[in-house]
């Protein structure tokens, strides 16, 4: 009897402890973050010097390769103009490939679950880039794709698996910023580079990001931009004055709705509620009722497919929200979401990746149709294609051909070459990477409208038409 009492006391203490931890957890990551930064200042300085030395050289190389890679065969001495000795002296280590070894690149995307089409779409882009490039310095390029899900656990697992492969040149991924956070340090510690085609959370490339994020770049737009565009559209174009937001606790959604809210208020609008749901929630009626009580003109919920579908479908059934404008962001930008939401998605606005018409993109779509017999499933295939092209170009720039026809690639040189990418003409426009790893062009974003036609047959009509471009 006595032990049961002590046990219940223990439970109470654990409960209280849980509350205390939950309340204080916000501060902890920041503390560790700053520690890491301080420690790594010295190494940063070294990197900086290296950058200075190599920057000019790399610039030339990167640009030169863009043209070469398009299909022409490359001479052996074209391989980045580096000697084998230079490469072998690389500070981060070297990838050594035999004459018959393929060049391996990794990918981690959402390949199952409700956001599957987001990941498959990105994987299509990577595969087509590999097809386009064909042989690289006489080596085949092979892809290892892992399922990183849309969760921190998934990102960690996928990154650990990929990082275990010593020959891997770099990783394309992830789709979700939440999955990227734990994945980036793992990939970076393995000396590899990581380029994401669809992470948009600002903190991944913020100026105060930890040094262990130093191998990370992205071709996707930053949410500081996306949230601003969405707010401008809602306030200026649509003339909406009262907005409510919903996020799902993920770094992506939380930051994006915050950027939106700040911009919306800056423009003169009012934020009536900033609510949150949980991933895997299905019953949105309570949160929507709470929002309806604040009488907004627009609800902005930059969350993901499953929960977004529930919010959309149930918003139309909630008293007071029948005619409210619904807005989402690129996390909902797929035919799957419209399927999930059903007819309720009609009239909804989504901000998302937009690829302007170009011959390059037309060829891409033809190749996609040819290979898979369908159009794109979501919006980040072009970003994934560009990311892969940039990675492979940088690999060539950092490579040297050995006497027996093998290949050595310097990891630090590869990283430097990637960060030095300037005016690379990709599908999404002209990409130049800054020192924080943001390579997006700023052109490749638009607001789309889900019309009745799209709602009736999402797969057949994807992507929907644009209504606003910044």
């Amino acid at each position, binding site marked *: 009897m006595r032990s049961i009492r002590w046990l219940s006391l223990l439970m109470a203490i654990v409960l209280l402890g849980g509350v205390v931890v939950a309340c204080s957890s916000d501060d902890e990551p920041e503390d560790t973050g700053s520690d890491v930064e301080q420690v790594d200042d010295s190494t940063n300085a070294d990197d900086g010097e290296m950058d200075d030395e190599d920057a000019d050289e790399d610039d030339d190389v990167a640009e030169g390769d863009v043209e070469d890679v398009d299909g022409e065969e490359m001479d052996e001495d074209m391989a980045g103009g580096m000697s084998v000795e230079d490469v072998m002296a690389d500070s981060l280590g070297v990838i050594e490939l035999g004459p018959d070894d393929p060049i391996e690149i990794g990918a981690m995307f959402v390949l199952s679950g409700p956001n599957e089409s987001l990941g498959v779409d990105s994987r299509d882009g990577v595969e087509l880039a590999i097809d386009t490039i064909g042989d690289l310095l006489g080596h085949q390029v092979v892809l290892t794709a892992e399922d990183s899900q849309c969760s921190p656990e998934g990102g960690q697992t996928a990154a650990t698996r990929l990082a275990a492969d010593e020959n891997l040149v770099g990783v394309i991924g992830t789709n979700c910023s939440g999955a990227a956070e734990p994945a980036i340090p793992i990939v970076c510690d393995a000396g590899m580079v990581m380029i994401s085609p669809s992470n948009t959370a600002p903190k991944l490339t913020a100026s105060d990001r930890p040094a262990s994020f130093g191998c990370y770049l992205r071709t996707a737009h930053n949410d500081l931009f996306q949230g601003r565009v969405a707010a401008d559209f809602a306030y200026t174009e649509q003339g909406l004055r009262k907005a409510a937001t919903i996020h799902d606790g993920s770094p992506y959604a939380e930051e994006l709705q915050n950027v939106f809210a700040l911009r919306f208020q800056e423009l003169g609008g009012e934020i009536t509620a900033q609510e949150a749901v949980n991933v895997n929630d*299905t*019953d949105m009626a309570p949160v929507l009722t709470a929002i309806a009580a604040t009488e907004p003109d627009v609800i902005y919920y930059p969350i993901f497919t499953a929960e977004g579908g529930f919010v959309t479908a149930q918003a139309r059934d909630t008293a007071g929200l029948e005619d409210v404008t619904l807005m989402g962001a690129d996390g909902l930008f797929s035919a799957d979401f419209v*399927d999930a939401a059903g007819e309720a998605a009609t009239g909804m606005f989504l901000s998302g990746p937009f690829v302007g018409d170009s011959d390059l993109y037309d060829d891409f779509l033809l190749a996609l149709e040819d290979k898979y017999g369908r159009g794109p499933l979501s919006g980040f295939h072009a970003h994934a294609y560009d990311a892969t092209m940039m990675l492979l170009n940088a690999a060539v720039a950092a490579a040297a051909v050995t006497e027996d026809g093998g290949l050595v690639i310097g990891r630090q040189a590869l990283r430097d070459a990637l960060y030095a990418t300037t005016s690379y003409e990709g599908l999404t426009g002209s990409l130049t990477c800054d020192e924080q790893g943001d390579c997006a062009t700023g052109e490749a974003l638009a607001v789309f409208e889900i019309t009745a036609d799209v709602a009736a047959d999402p797969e057949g009509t994807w992507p929907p038409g644009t209504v606003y471009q910044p």
Partner: protein
Amino acid sequence: MPWSRRLRRLHPTDVIMGIVGASVIAVVLYGSYETLRSGRYDGTDWFSFLVAGLTQGSIYALIALGYTLVYGILRMINFAHGEIFTAGAMTTFYLATWLSGKGWLTADRLGSAAGARVLGTIVLLIVFSALISSIVAVVLERVAYRPLRGAPRLIPLITAIGASFFLQYTLRGLYGSGIRPYPDVSVLNRELTFGGGYSIAMDEVVVIGSAFVLMLALVAFVQGTRTGMAMRAVAEDRQAAALMGIDVDRTIATTFAVGGALAGAAGVLYALLFRQTQFFMGFIPGLKAFTAAVLGGIGNIPGAMLGGLFLGIAESIGPFLFLEGLGIPSPNQLKDAIAFTMLVLVLIFRPTGILGERVSKRA
């Protein structure tokens, strides 16, 4: 007993637990007072919260009954129960889509002949889903649990977790990993309005009504039929029941079938309400229903119903009533925290659940 002696016998833990309980109640009361004082939500909003909670809660209750029935008779937690729920809902997806294509789920209003056909189709879907789920449950019992009948209690528990994963990934293999949207029964999106802005959606009426009918049917079955009597007898004392000539294996299989049928019915109601099915969809409702079963007193049938409804309402109203007034931002995010805190508190102060019998260990 004089007060002085009672005080002396008071264990220090009792004092601390009392303080914990009192402070939780104080915080809750203060939060509720502040929320109500602010007048942020009016009566119609609270009514909407309540209805949403009741709807979600009746689905929890139906699933919770499966946990409780099996626990009552076998003293094991069937962790694969959430997947039995998924199996029914996902298989019925094909029947629902097919019938919807034939126009059986379309009507202008419920009062018409077409409306009656819609309701009939929903009953058909519920029966079909219940059938599929009970077949899965019975096969599961036969293959995974019956061979372990004599084993220590931990072993069937681990088996249940394994079975849960097995079923989940079988369903993924069969139906794919993407979302399967259920057909939209547009006539159920209508609101049933009362005066003063109070309204309730038809699909919520259908879900609550069906759940209520099913629960009544279960009580009638357990209390009023010979099989039900056999189930109660086996639950009370398996050996004695066997000696009285009851086929224990058969009775246990029936229990799984009944629990599975309720989960299958809940699957269709869930799909009608939320219109999305996916191979992983049973996990969270399964966990919540398990919580509801424990909350109400596991092994106790009215307890599971009460626990389910209680949990649904607590999740729906709790964050806005208790937390909003405390100035916590985005309170809805903490609804799971409320649900599980409530579970812990109930277990501390009433270890056998709200309606659970007080089992005296000293006897």
